[in-house]
């Protein structure tokens, strides 16, 4: 296991938080109510804060003289290893909540395992993040129940979001060859082991939300290998604009 292996692994985890954090940030000032707007931006802030901790560690591991900002803002699309789920657009509030819930349940389980990593940096970041993610999961889960078991319109919208986003859930558990190296070294997590528990958890909540569980034969993948949906380019052009236009700018 080399530092490059480790960096690649960190991208697989941290890029999810970065891209989802960026996606939710788009809602700042556009949430359906003031309270949900503030809640979503708080979640975005947590995710971006966690991303910083990971990228600072990447900068430390890297042989070249890079900073956390370079890692966040100056990679090309193929170099981002986030799953396709987190880059899906904020179609409506039901999509935002469903995407969040599908991710939060996985995120919580992943961090719970990463807490026991042999790598002390992973341990520290996981312990810190877990406290935050338990709030995220509660927020998104509560809202999904409310939308599903709400009015006819909210139910229809929630069901559509669940049906459309379901195809992106399986990728969360895909193990790349690099993931396997890190997991075998006791640093990373074998996400395949989390899959059964994950689907049990989200199916139970969907049932409580009186929503149907989609029957899907195939699942989308590609993000973990850097092959993204068409949405990713738009996210990056927005997110990277300042750094590319004014190179090396700082706050």
């Amino acid at each position, binding site marked *: 296991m080399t530092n490059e292996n480790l960096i690649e692994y960190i991208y697989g985890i941290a890029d999810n938080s970065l891209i989802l954090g960026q996606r939710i940030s788009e809602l700042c000032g556009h949430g359906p109510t003031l*309270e949900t707007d503030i809640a979503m931006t*708080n979640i975005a802030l947590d*995710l971006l*804060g966690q991303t*910083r*901790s990971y990228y600072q560690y990447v900068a430390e591991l890297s042989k070249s003289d890079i900073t956390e900002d370079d890692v966040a803002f100056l990679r090309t699309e193929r170099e981002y290893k986030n799953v396709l789920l987190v880059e899906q657009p904020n179609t409506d509030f039901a999509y935002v909540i469903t995407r969040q819930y599908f991710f939060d349940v996985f995120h919580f389980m992943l961090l719970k395992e990463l807490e026991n990593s042999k790598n*002390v940096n992973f341990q*520290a970041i996981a312990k*810190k993040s877990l406290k935050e993610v338990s*709030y995220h999961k509660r927020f998104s889960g509560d809202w999904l129940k409310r939308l599903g078991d709400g009015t006819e319109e909210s139910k229809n919208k929630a069901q559509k979001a669940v049906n459309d986003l379901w195809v992106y859930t399986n990728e969360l558990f895909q193990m790349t060859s690099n993931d396997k190296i890190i997991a075998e070294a006791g640093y990373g997590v074998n996400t395949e082991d989390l899959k059964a528990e994950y689907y049990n958890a989200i199916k139970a909540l969907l049932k409580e939300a009186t929503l149907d569980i989609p029957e899907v034969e195939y699942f989308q993948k590609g993000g973990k290998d850097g092959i993204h949906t068409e949405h990713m380019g738009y996210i990056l052009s927005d997110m990277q604009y300042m750094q590319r236009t004014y190179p090396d700018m700082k706050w």
Partner: protein
Amino acid sequence: MTDQADIATELYDILKSVPDPEIPVLSIIDLGVVRSAKLLENKVAKVDITPTYSGCPAMDVIGDDIKTELQKHGYTPQVKLILSPAWTTDWMTEEGKQALKEYGIAPPMDATSDKDALLGNKRVIPCPQCDSKNTRLVSQFASTACKAMFKCEDCEETFDYFKCLI
């Protein structure tokens, strides 16, 4: 207790005078973000701070404020951000909790009461204005990530509750 902050006596008062930028009635010592402060040779003061929440935007300001204050007293500051062990509301001092209440923010409660309140099961968070426990959750997230919003049904005031993080 290993979680106890280790702060050199000479530096204590200086650090105690640095306020949290978002809740200025609370000193960073009372908030529990200063984990260690050591005095090294040549008046070098080495201070370790830990964030309340990962994305807490106050951390950069807190770091700068510590440096400024230490320099004023003739020290050469070295401020480091550490993540482990992770911050918990248990590190907030009693004095800090009292200051929060007087400022109009309900201080963090024990974990069980906190969960009951945030899940909307029980009404247990006392209103910082009138002390009534007849309060209800408005939103799990409020003006900052570390707070939730409640409303008192008796005096009808909305207020922030500092969430329990353990």
